[in-house]
């Protein structure tokens, strides 16, 4: 029995190289025109249809975490894990549907979400939200590159730093040619490939093992209470021994964290606002996010049920080695690796390769979108807004391409450094809400409530975030069970408690019609604000 990485190293290079070459060549041939002006580069031409926007949202919202951590919830909490993972992460999409439709109607020339905040409120809110979305996008990209790199390293043995460098080069290469359109086009292709891989995996588990056998396996877990995670706290094991209970309390806590964290990760994330920007009209924006919700929910739901709950029912134990149907061994290294482990046990190399292709595609599509989102805010909001408002089209375009490389190198440096010092990402997903979600209610109120107080929104975002972070670090000692749940609730709760009364006491009426022609087209921010005030 072998104990080396289950796939050969060259397979990693082949999968990544094939994807990089295919997307770059396809984009160069199909969409050269989309990279010829700064407007087209950053906004995709604003004429992309429903099918591609829908697929792009689905692909962008699938991270390596979607397939790996959702399956971990199935393994850890039983059948409710996939329900709560899918529900909590899907809720932001219909919210974005209504925001997208509203923005396309009231400010059709918006390119970025901080740009909307600027014309809706003032400079301090603009700067705050520019910084927030840059941090959100960088945070997500760091998780993606690391998650994808760790997974491919475990499966192929290729050095982590080479995987990280190759992934980043792929992100930057095809995006450099045609910007947002390239990102959305590649998302579309990857989405179709991912669905094909996941359908094979999900239906093989249904046919080869069957739901009834999985149920019997779960009953066995309830009766025998096996220790499937040696060294884990007793609370973790007790949650695992209750896999058929709707009210698995650890699972409910995860639902709260997942919902609040993902609201921040979507509503404060320029990547999803870009999909709204690229849509041809408000109805397509609304419809695409709504159908994306319907299409995205079953991805973690079905995958985690098949692989996470399936792995639990088979009694897979962390630290043990299991063999594929052809007799090759693979070590079950950690609970978050249950998805590829189960795929390997059930389908052998085929299951593992399909899983690697799906996660590789998810990593590349999301990473590319997030890096472009960072560049969009840096160039559109900060550079053109404050440093060089009269920047020419050519200047903006060349700077966008330059910043893609600079941001890529910056991210790589952090990823490789954190990997070298042993920094783990196990808590980053659950701590997202603590970092960002104080901005969710202010954004929502800016979009829909004409009397929102601008100072209230600014301080609600800052104070909510600070109090939540202080609670999690100082009171909860960065606990990742109920401590992080309460921190997420505090972040959003404090933000609401500050902004809503402040607005009620001191409303600042605003006419949404004044934003109809707003956007970064003129000489300076002050001049632009004067132009929109006159309207």
């Amino acid at each position: 029995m072998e104990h080396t990485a289950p796939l050969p190293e060259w397979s990693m290079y082949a999968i990544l190289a094939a994807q990089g070459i295919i997307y770059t060549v396809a984009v160069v041939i199909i969409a050269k025109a989309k990279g010829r002006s700064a407007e087209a580069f950053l906004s995709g031409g604003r004429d992309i249809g429903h099918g591609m926007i829908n697929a792009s949202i689905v692909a962008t919202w699938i991270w390596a975490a979607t397939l790996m951590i959702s399956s971990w919830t199935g393994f850890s909490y039983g059948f409710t894990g996939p329900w709560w993972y899918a529900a909590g992460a899907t809720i932001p999409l219909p919210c974005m549907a209504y925001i997208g439709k509203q923005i396309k109607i009231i400010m059709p020339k918006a390119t970025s979400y901080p740009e909307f905040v600027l014309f809706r409120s003032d400079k301090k809110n603009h700067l705050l939200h520019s910084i927030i979305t840059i941090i959100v996008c960088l945070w997500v990209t760091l998780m993606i590159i690391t998650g994808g790199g760790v997974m491919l390293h475990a499966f192929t043995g290729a050095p982590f730093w080479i995987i990280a460098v190759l992934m980043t080069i792929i992100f930057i290469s095809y995006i450099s040619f045609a910007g947002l359109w390239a990102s959305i086009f590649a998302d579309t292709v990857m989405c179709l490939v991912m669905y094909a891989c996941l359908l094979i995996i999900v239906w093989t588990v249904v046919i080869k093992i069957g739901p009834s056998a999985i149920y019997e396996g779960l009953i066995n877990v309830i009766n025998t209470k096996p220790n499937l995670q040696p060294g884990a706290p007793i609370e973790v094991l007790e949650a695992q021994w209750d896999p058929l209970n709707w009210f698995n309390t650890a699972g409910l806590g995860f639902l709260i964290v997942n919902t609040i964290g993902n609201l921040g990760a979507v509503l404060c994330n320029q990547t999803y606002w870009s999909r709204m920007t690229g849509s041809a009209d408000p109805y397509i924006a609304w419809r695409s996010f709504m159908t994306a919700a319907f299409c995205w929910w079953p991805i973690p739901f079905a995958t985690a049920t098949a692989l996470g709950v399936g792995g639990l029912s088979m009694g897979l134990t962390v630290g043990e080695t299991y063999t594929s149907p052809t007799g090759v061994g693979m070590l079950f290294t950690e609970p978050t690796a249950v998805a590829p482990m189960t795929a390997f046990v059930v389908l052998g190399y085929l299951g593992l390769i399909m899983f690697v292709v799906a996660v590789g595609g998810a990593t590349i599509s999301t990473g590319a979108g997030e890096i472009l989102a960072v560049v969009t805010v840096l160039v559109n909001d900060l550079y053109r807004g404050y440093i060089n408002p009269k920047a020419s089209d050519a200047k903006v375009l060349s700077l966008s391409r330059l910043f893609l490389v600079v941001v890529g190198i910056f991210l790589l440096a952090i990823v490789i450094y954190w990997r070298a010092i042993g920094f783990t990402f196990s808590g980053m997903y659950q701590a997202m809400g603590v970092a960002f979600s104080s901005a969710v209610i202010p954004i929502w109120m800016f979009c829909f409530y004409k009397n929102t107080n601008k100072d209230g929104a600014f301080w609600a975002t800052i104070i909510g975030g600070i109090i939540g972070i202080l609670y999690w670090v100082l009171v909860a000692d960065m606990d990742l069970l109920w401590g992080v749940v309460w921190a997420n609730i505090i972040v959003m709760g404090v933000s609401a408690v500050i902004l809503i009364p402040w607005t009620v006491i001191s409303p600042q009426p605003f006419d949404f019609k004044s934003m109809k022609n707003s956007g970064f087209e003129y000489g300076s921010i002050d001049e632009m604000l004067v132009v929109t005030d006159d309207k």
Partner: protein
Amino acid sequence: MPMTQLTASGYVLNHWITAIWITLAAIYTYWACIHDMLNFFKSRAGKSLDVE
């Protein structure tokens, strides 16, 4: 068995729902993407003909 615990038939139904739902989602996504791509290439062909 606690009232909040799934029965065998409940779990089986839940599992089938996950498989059928992802299949429907895939069918819809494929259909919508192919529809868009066809429109995109038709409009490019139309513009080429206009130029000529």
